[in-house]
Every structure is written in C-alpha cells, then in structure tokens.
C-alpha cells in the first residue's frame, strides 16, 4: 500500500501584487501514497489551493511564479515540464475537481463534448468508444439515464449532479492522483455526504490517491488518512487523522477545532472562534505567523520562526509551546 506516487519538496509560489510580493506558498513539502487520502485544511488564503494549482501547472503566470521546489510524480518533476508534457499529465495521470460545479463546466458545450474530449486526447479513443466510456462513468457516479443525459448541457443539471459530472470527468482516465479542491463546499449538506462517499468508493476500486483541500474539519475526519494544516503558506501541523483529532499540537489546529460545533459536547458549550484576521501575506510579522492570534504565544515566538518538528502524535508540528501544559492567555483583537 505504501507505494509513493507524489512527492512535493519545499514548494514555494509567489505572486506579484500592487502591495508587493506575496509568498502564497513558502516551503511546503508532503508525500502521497497510492490509495491514500491526504487532507489539507486552512483558512482562505492559507495557500492550500495555490499549492495544488502549482502542482498542476495552473498558476496564472504572471502574476504568479513558482520560485522553488519539486513536485515528483513517480520521480518526474512536474514543475520542470513543458506545456506539452504537462498536457499529457493533466486530466490523465493527475485530475482535479474544483470548488464550484456551477461555473466549472463549460455552459456552451454538451456534457458529451466535455467528457469525450478527455479520453479522445489522452487515450486516443474513437468518438463512439469515448462516448460509451463517458456514459459508463456517468452511471458510476450516479447519474440516472446517462445515455440520454450525456447529451444535455450543464444548465440542465443541478449543482450536485454537476459535481458528479466533474468527478466522472476527472476519473475518465483513471488518474493516479485526484486533487479535490473544496469539492463539497458549494453543495447542500446531504449532497456533500453523497459526493464524499462517491469519492471514497472510487478510491477503493481504483486505488486513486486523493488530495482533499477543504476548510471543513468534519469532512477531513470522515474521509482522510492523513491531514496537513496550513497557515500563511506553510504547514503548521501534519499528522495521521486520529492523532491530529485526539492530540492537536499546534495552537492554530486547536483553534480550528474549538471553533466548530461538536455533537458530543453539551448544548450550552460556547464555540471559541480564533481571534483576529488571517495575516497579510505581503507583510508577515517576524517569527511565527500565527503569534498575533495565538493564546499560547511566548516571547520567543516573536523572534524566531518555529520549524516543523516531530510531535507526540507521531506527526509534525511547528510550535515552541506544548499546548497541553502551557498557560492560555486572552488575545486582544486588533
């Protein structure tokens, strides 16, 4: 099972903005094995989407630029590939599902057009064969009457159905890696569960490795094997899903968990939000980026940036303080 598929080392991405250079991703590393699901959590702007767009070579350049790092897909560096080489990988060996199914399908082309072109290009299938395959795939993702629906246009499908179509599209070529960028955020809760279940089923049968990007810890807990928590373009904590949920080591992870409602808590328990705003990436404070919002911060946090170090839960975390024993202070917003 532990066959390594994707290895990302020290990835860094910058964007040029009017406000100066923004380091959207700064030294991100992770590995992904066959059949494994890696969850990446973080607030908006934490760099989780940019990391994965960079792997796919989909960072708009300019203003974006990959400044350092490697992304090895079975040993081949995706970041060094030409456009032509990348087009052979995209949609074929690595596929991606996006957040908003309402805008991610082309409204001017029928579902058949949009599905068949993938297999025609990558697998060189004839139109008839690729159409048959598209219909099979639609059936697998739970679209009723796929033989007829395949000729419909996106506006004739609901949001959940469109996300199913997106998943079908992503899985047409049986990719080794599936990157799902907030695949359920735009959907109703009941549909969310169905979509996650569907991805899980397909992973079981195809052995696809999945990177699941989300800001929803509940989603992570239900489907992921390992989790990485991102803050200000860096991983601040990485661990197995059980270790992370039982013993979160980073104050930010802890904050995220305290800010969601739990069924096993008393109804009167108050939610504790994380105080303050996500940092301005163009003007990061020295030391730990989370320090201004951290209830456990000590003097050292302002001077030095904590490195990722092994933690007691078997994973890694980037914090000087042991949250299980440290004193918790009131953080003043602003």
């Amino acid at each position, binding site marked *: 099972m532990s066959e390594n598929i994707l290895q990302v080392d020290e990835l860094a991405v910058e964007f040029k903005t009017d406000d100066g250079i923004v380091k959207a991703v700064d030294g991100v590393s992770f590995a992904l094995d066959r059949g494994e699901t890696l969850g990446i959590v973080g607030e908006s702007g934490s760099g989780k989407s940019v990391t994965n767009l960079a792997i*796919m070579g*989909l960072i708009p350049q300019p203003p974006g630029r990959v400044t350092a790092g490697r992304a090895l897909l079975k040993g081949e560096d995706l970041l060094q590939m030409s*456009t*032509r080489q*990348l*087009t*052979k*990988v*995209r*949609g*074929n060996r690595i*596929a*991606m599902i*996006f957040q*908003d199914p309402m*805008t*991610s*399908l*082309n*409204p*001017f*082309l*029928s579902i058949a057009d949009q599905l068949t*072109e*993938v297999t025609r*290009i*990558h697998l060189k299938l004839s139109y008839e064969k690729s159409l048959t395959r598209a219909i099979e795939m639609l059936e697998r993702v739970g679209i009723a009457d796929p033989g007829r629906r395949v000729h419909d*246009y996106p*506006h004739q499908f609901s949001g959940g159905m469109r996300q199913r179509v*997106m998943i079908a*599209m992503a899985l047409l070529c049986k990719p080794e890696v599936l990157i799902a960028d907030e695949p359920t955020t735009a959907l109703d809760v009941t549909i969310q569960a169905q979509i996650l279940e569907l991805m899980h089923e397909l992973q079981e049968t195809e052995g696809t490795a999945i990177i699941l990007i989300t800001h929803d810890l509940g989603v992570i807990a239900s489907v992921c094997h390992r989790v990485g928590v991102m803050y200000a373009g860096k991983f601040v904590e990485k661990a197995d899903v059980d270790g992370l949920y039982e013993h979160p080591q980073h104050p930010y992870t802890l904050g995220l968990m305290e800010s969601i409602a739990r069924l096993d808590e008393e109804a009167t328990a108050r939610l504790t939000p994380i105080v303050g705003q996500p940092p301005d990436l163009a003007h990061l404070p020295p030391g730990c980026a989370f320090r201004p919002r951290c209830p456990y911060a000590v003097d050292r946090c302002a001077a030095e940036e904590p490195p990722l170090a092994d933690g007691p839960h078997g994973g890694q975390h980037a914090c000087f303080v042991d949250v299980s024993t440290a004193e918790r202070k009131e953080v003043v917003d602003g």
Partner: protein
Amino acid sequence: MIGFLAKRLLWMALTLWVVFTVSFFLMRAVPGGPFSEERKIDPYALEVFEARYNLDEPLPVQYWLELKRTVWHGDLGLSIRKVDYTVAEIIAEGLPISATLGIVAMAFALTLGITAGVVSSVRRGTVLDFSLMTVATVGIALPNFVVAGIAIVLVVFIWPIFPAAGWGGVQHVILPAFCLGAPYAAYIARLVRTGMLDVLGQDYIRTAYAKGLMPRRVIMRHAMKGAMLPVASFLGPAVAGILTGSLIIEQIFAIPGLAYNFVQAAVQRDYTVAMGLVLTYTTLLYTMNLLVDISYSYLDPRVKLE
C-alpha cells in the same frame, strides 16, 4: 421555433406597414415633387404625367392606391424619373451589386475583427496587443468616408493597385468593401478581445486546462463560443451600419448599387423608387436581425427562442 418565426413574420408585416406610412407622408411633406425642375414643363404634359402616377389625386387617395398596389398586387410600381423602368427592375439590378459589396465588407469585418481580437486577448499586455487595439480605436473613430479618402490617396494615386471607381471585376470590390467594413472590423476586434478576456478568466477555462487540453484547443473550442456572443448581438446594428454606410461608399466609388439609386431617387423625388428601396432595406434589416436572434440560440444552449 415555428411559432417564433410566425410571430416575427407578423411583426415584420406590421413594421413594413409603419415604415411605408411614415415614408409616404415624409416624402410628400418634403417641398418639391418629381416634376419640379428649373426647366418649365408643358402644363398639359405635366397633367398627363401626374395622372399616370396618381399624383393628381388627394393625398389619402394616393396613399390608399399605393398601399393597395403594393400589398394586393405585390407591385412596387413604375419609376417616376427613370422612364421605362419598374422599381422591381431597379432593385433587381442594384441588389446583387450592393449585396456583394455588403457581404464582402461584412466577411472582411468579421475575419479581421475576430482574428485581431483573439490575438490581442491571448497576447494581452504585449506590444502586439497594444498596436492592434490602437489601430482599432482609430478605426472606430474614423468615419468611412475619411477612411475611403485616405485609402484612395494611398492605393489609387500614390501606389496605384486599385481602380478609383466603377463596378465590374474583383478589383472593384476590394477597396470599397474595405472602407465599408473597416470601422466594423475595428469594433468587432475590441468586442472579441473584451469577450475573450472575460471568458478566459472563467472557471471552466481552468477546468479545460486541467483536463490536459493544449492552449490552442482551449481557446478555439472552449473560449471561442462565449467570446462570440457579444459579436453576435453586435451583428444586427452592424448590418444596419453597413447598409447606411453603403449610401456614402457607393457614391464615393460610383457603384451602381441600391444605395446609389436610393440617393438619386431621394434627390429627384422619385417617390416610387425611394419607397421601394426603403421597403427593401427594412426587409433586409429585419431578416438579418432575425438571423442574429436565431444564431444566438445556436451559440448559447441556454437561450431558448420564444
């Protein structure tokens, strides 16, 4: 679709009737008539002429007679000033010429406009984009008779590769069609560039790249249709503009098309010819707008004709 067409044809009939009525009374309201000239006409001959075209009748009777002849018999009548010509004959002679000019101008405007717009948007922010859009802005600002003047100086006098005027061969079409289509090419180029940039920023374009399509295919197959929508809506006004533009261009290049005859008829108060041509232009414009609406539903599957 059938219901849509039936409804639009009904509207067209109504439009033609309104245009007929307004034109009829406007023409009569203008001072002078077909036979008012500096040269004195024999009063008896004048009486005969006027009787021949019902011009001696009271205005409401003239209106009724002309409407009846046009609608009931489908007959646009005789030309008042071009002796021995029916209006239908004048249209039959002029229409192919004007249509050739208009179609070539339109084809030129679309080809050049779309190409320049796509290139500009794909190479956004480069010198090429900047130069193309500068030329386009100038092109929109210059009226076609100025373009025609400059073009004649350049390629007729300084570098004589085109004839100055006339009609007959391919060489006679190119220059007037260029002058007629140039402002529309410029406008279409800007529309396509804006439309393309808008579409290229859409999520579904990112999806297309993520599927592993080459950039050329993404642009031609996934972005083109969306970028063409504004152009399709502009085609209606563009056809109208090319029709009116031909009034000037046919005069400048002495092309014996509809517009040339129209101007002559207006100046000479040739009521029947002017009316026939107004109705022809109305029909053309209405039909083109109908085609544009239909093309819209082909471009965008979300649009339903009703």
